[in-house]
C-alpha cells in the first residue's frame, strides 16, 4: 500500500469520518495480514487490529508528515503486536535476539537443496503451513523486520522508519531472519529432497 495511498490528510486530521472509513477500508486487509503473521493467532490479530485503528484514530491529529501515512500505520500495528506478545509471554518477548544486532551471523546448518522440488509442492497447503510455522520461530524483532520488508514489500528505509531503528539494523536483522527461515525450510524439506534424488537416479 506504499505509494498508492492517497488520502486527504487534512480531512483525516480534522476528524472527517468518511475519509477515516476509507482509510480503514483500504488499509485494514494488509494490516490484518501483518498482525496475523506477527501473532500467529486469529483472535489476537483481531484484537490488535482494533486497538491499532483506535490508536490511529486518536493520534491522527498529531500525525506529522515526516513518514508516510502507511509507514505510520505499520508502526502503530507493529507496536500493538509487540505489546500483545509481551502481555501473553513476557518471558519470550524479552531477551531472545533482542538487541543482538551484531554482524556475526550464525552459519547455515541445513544444506538440502529444496529449490528442485516442484512449486506445486512447495506452495501446497502443507507448504504454506510450513512458511507460516517458520515465521513463528523468529524472535519478534526479526519477525517484524522480515514481514515488513519481504512480505509487505517496504523498502529498507521505510522498514527502518516503521520500527524506529537504523537501516543497518534492518539489514542485519533481515539477513538473520532470512537465514533462519532458510534453515527451517531446508530442514523441513530435506527428506523430500533426499527421496527425489533417489527417484531421479
Amino acid at each position, binding site marked *: 500500500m506504499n505509494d498508492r495511498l492517497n488520502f486527504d490528510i487534512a480531512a483525516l486530521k480534522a476528524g472527517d469520518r468518511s475519509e477515516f*472509513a476509507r482509510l480503514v477500508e483500504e488499509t485494514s*486487509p494488509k494490516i490484518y495480514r501483518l498482525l496475523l503473521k506477527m501473532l500467529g493467532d486469529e483472535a489476537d490479530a483481531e484484537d490488535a487490529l482494533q486497538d491499532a485503528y483506535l490508536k490511529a484514530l486518536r493520534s491522527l491529529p498529531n500525525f506529522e508528515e515526516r513518514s508516510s501515512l502507511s509507514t505510520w500505520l505499520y508502526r502503530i500495528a507493529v507496536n500493538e503486536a509487540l505489546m500483545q506478545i509481551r502481555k501473553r509471554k513476557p518471558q519470550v518477548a524479552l531477551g531472545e535476539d533482542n538487541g543482538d544486532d551484531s554482524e556475526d551471523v550464525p552459519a547455515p546448518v541445513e544444506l538440502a537443496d529444496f529449490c528442485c522440488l516442484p512449486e506445486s509442492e512447495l506452495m501446497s497447503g502443507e507448504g504454506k503451513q510450513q512458511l507460516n510455522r517458520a515465521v513463528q520461530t523468529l524472535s519478534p524483532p526479526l519477525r517484524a523486520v*522480515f514481514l515488513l520488508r519481504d512480505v509487505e514489500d517496504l523498502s529498507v528505509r521505510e522498514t527502518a522508519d516503521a520500527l524506529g531503528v537504523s537501516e543497518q539494523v534492518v539489514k542485519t536483522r533481515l539477513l538473520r531472519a*532470512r537465514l533462519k527461515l532458510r534453515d527451517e525450510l531446508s530442514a523441513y524439506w530435506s527428506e523430500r529432497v533426499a527421496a527425489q534424488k533417489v527417484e531421479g537416479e
Partner: protein
Amino acid sequence: MDEHTHEHGHCRDLLGSLSDYVDGTLGELLCAELEEHLRGCSNCRVVVDTLRKTVELYHMEAEKEALPPTVRERLFSKLDLEDYLKSG
C-alpha cells in the same frame, strides 16, 4: 581446489553479503568476489539458491488476502463506522 567449510574461512566471511546479493544490491567488488567463491563452493551455492527461493516463496504467498467479513464488520463497529459499512 580449496576445501571450504561453513565453519571456517571464506564461506563465513561472505555470509554477511548474501542478503544484499539475493536483493541485487551488493556492490560490484563484493559481488565479483562472492561469485568467484560460488564457482568453487557447492555448499554456498546451495545456501544462496535456497535463500533466494525462501524469499521468493514468501513473496508468492503474500498474495492479496481479503479481510474476513466478520473481522471487518467488528472492526467498523468498534470504530463507530457502521454507517460506512458497505457490502464488502
